[in-house]
């Protein structure tokens, strides 16, 4: 608009009006000084204060129809036009009431535990046909229980001191679960047809809608780790001894026979007198790591898991596996493949299936190292190391010290979380909005505990 022209054409009173409105002020772009003053006068917004803490979150992905992901809208959509989501292919945030310190994925169900002193310490979701999530009272019929639990529901543990005891760890198997507390022993629930809950097998027992949660206290010292195999349970005590109970037809109880055991019994064999610092199992094979970095194995060896020491396919006594790969820090047992993590931060795999070294390596009796460059280690960032390694039934997961999650293996119903449905033959990054602290792998789903960036 031509201010000068307007002024010239207007009559006297109108002109004064324009001047008063300030249109007579300098036209054109604001000068640098005006810009700077406007900038300094602008309000400052604060999105995070100096004491802002990083938040802890839980992300889930995989097969959702069993309710194992804990998001009810995937199975029963909240709007009529929405379709149910059978598979969640990428990490999805799960809202939890408390900070989750331990998670475990079973065969179609999940347990989340927090080490709080509040009354509710453990939540469960997914399949509950064998009461592996305890008794979940149905709201429609107070006498019946839920068969499928679609969102994280509290599990009522019969604690003596519910406001003092803390839950340290949870573990899930095919149809049973174990909850480890700091002062009240181990609580077991779920299917007990093979004695995997540590109590006597009752013939024709009906496991669904059962209120029974068994407590195990008789060990030589405090139990510090509980591990569930497919139909057996392993307990590791502070003194370094291992106890087992449950199905033993593959020798996975390691007690020298192939029968079932319904009371936790101490293992001998090559681990007698050895201080075991970690045990792992998920299928029918078991691995244990001693404080000196040696690996011991027992159980199913049909997939060459223990072929380095024996040709028999079922090993029922723990045997030392003489691998020359350095001091082992952690072991993870899957259904057909095993992985160990050494002190230097390298991952070694062996067994059968997709092991992580391309499609050509499908079986190996001795550990093969996965090149560190696949986990992001390069000349640019030479100090990346793998901090944790975990196994699901046919997939592997590794967490680096930078908080990045790598997965590989069979992508059963989207459980790898890569966003694609194809199998992954070498470690692949999963995009998670946060620093991954820990991950739990199941048959067809995974749960991870993540800390936000800022």
């Amino acid at each position, binding site marked *: 608009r031509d201010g000068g022209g307007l002024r010239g054409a207007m009559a006297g009173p109108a002109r004064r009006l324009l001047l008063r409105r300030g249109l007579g002020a300098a036209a054109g772009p604001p000068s640098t000084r005006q810009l700077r003053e*406007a*900038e300094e006068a*602008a*309000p*400052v*917004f*604060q*999105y*995070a*204060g*100096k*004491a*802002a803490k990083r938040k802890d979150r839980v992300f889930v992905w995989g097969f959702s129809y069993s309710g194992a992901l804990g998001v009810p809208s995937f199975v029963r959509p909240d709007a009529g036009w929405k379709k149910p989501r059978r598979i969640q292919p990428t990490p999805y945030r799960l809202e939890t009431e408390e900070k989750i310190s331990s998670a475990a994925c079973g065969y179609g169900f999940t347990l989340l535990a927090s080490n709080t002193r509040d009354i509710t310490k453990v939540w469960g979701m997914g399949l509950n046909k064998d009461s592996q999530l305890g008794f979940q009272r149905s709201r429609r019929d107070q006498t019946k229980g839920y068969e499928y639990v679609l969102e994280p529901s509290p599990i009522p543990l019969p604690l003596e001191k519910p406001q003092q005891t803390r839950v340290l760890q949870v573990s899930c198997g095919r149809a049973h679960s174990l909850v480890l507390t700091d002062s009240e022993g181990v609580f077991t629930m779920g299917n007990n047809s093979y004695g995997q809950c540590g109590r006597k097998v009752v013939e024709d027992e009906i496991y669904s809608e059962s209120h029974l949660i068994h407590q195990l206290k008789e060990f030589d010292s405090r139990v510090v780790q509980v591990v569930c195999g497919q139909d057996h349970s392993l307990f590791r005590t502070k003194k370094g001894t291992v106890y087992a109970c449950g199905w033993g037809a593959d020798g996975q109880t390691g007690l020298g026979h192939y029968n079932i055991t319904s009371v936790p019994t101490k293992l001998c064999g090559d681990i007698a007198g050895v201080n075991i610092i970690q045990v792992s199992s998920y299928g029918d094979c078991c691995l244990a790591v001693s404080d000196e970095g040696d690996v011991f194995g027992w159980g199913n060896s049909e997939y060459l898991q223990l072929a380095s020491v024996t040709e028999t396919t079922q090993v029922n006594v723990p045997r030392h596996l003489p691998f020359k790969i350095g001091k082992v820090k952690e072991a993870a047992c899957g259904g057909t493949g095993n992985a160990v993590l050494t002190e230097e931060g390298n991952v070694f795999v062996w067994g059968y299936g997709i092991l992580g*070294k*391309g*499609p*050509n390596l499908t079986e190996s009796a001795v550990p093969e190292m996965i*090149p560190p*460059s*696949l986990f*992001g280690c*390069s000349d*640019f*960032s030479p100090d990346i190391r793998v901090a944790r390694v975990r196994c699901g039934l046919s997939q592997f997961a590794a967490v680096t010290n*930078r*908080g*990045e999650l790598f997965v590989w293996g069979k992508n059963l119903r989207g459980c790898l979380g890569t966003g694609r449905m*194809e*199998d*992954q*033959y*070498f470690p*692949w*990054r999963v*995009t998670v*909005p946060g*620093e991954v602290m820990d991950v739990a792998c199941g048959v067809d789903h995974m749960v991870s505990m993540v800390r936000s*960036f*800022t």
Partner: protein
Amino acid sequence: VRGPRFRKLKIGAGHRLDVKASGVFVLGIGHGNKLLTDLHNCHLTKVYTVGGLFGKATDDFSDTGNLVEKTTFDHITRENLERILAVIQGTNQKALLMYSNIDMKTQEAYELAVKGLIRPMGKSPPIITAVRCLQFALPEFQLEIHCLHETQQYLRKMVHEIGLELKSSAVCTQVRRTRDGVFTVGDALPRTRWNLRSIQEAIQNCQLKVETELERTLG
């Protein structure tokens, strides 16, 4: 015969460098234009030094734009910034593998991934192969970025997004290309040496490097 040595020169430019950025800019003279196309097809990484400033957000992501918002930044530490940079590297690593059009199910893909040689050899969106924090002194910080197929405005947008991730805001103060494929700042001619003799010397010095790189990548 007398007269100027060169009457007409065909000059072609290599990868773009916009007005607000500075650094290495590759030009090809005469027959060198063909080499330029070949070098472009090699898809080599470029290295930039990017400077940023926390506390402001502008509309064109640089410090000369119109102010959109001011925020506090005293909660940001070097660890926070490095964590975000690690995630940026991670997601771009995935993009690197995805756009390289290699079938992930082959043994060949595994071998290349181990050596770190997977690279998109065709058109792809901007990919960052490596990021590192060089300096950090609130409110300023400086990053070294190795990238492919990028534009300088994309780098400025990245600085803005880093600011948003850290629950604050950031603007880009400086974009300087320190390496373009095989050409580094050491090979580049400063303004004082923009004369025929220096140009001829520079061409001779770089000839060997360019030839070896072309042979290695294109065969």
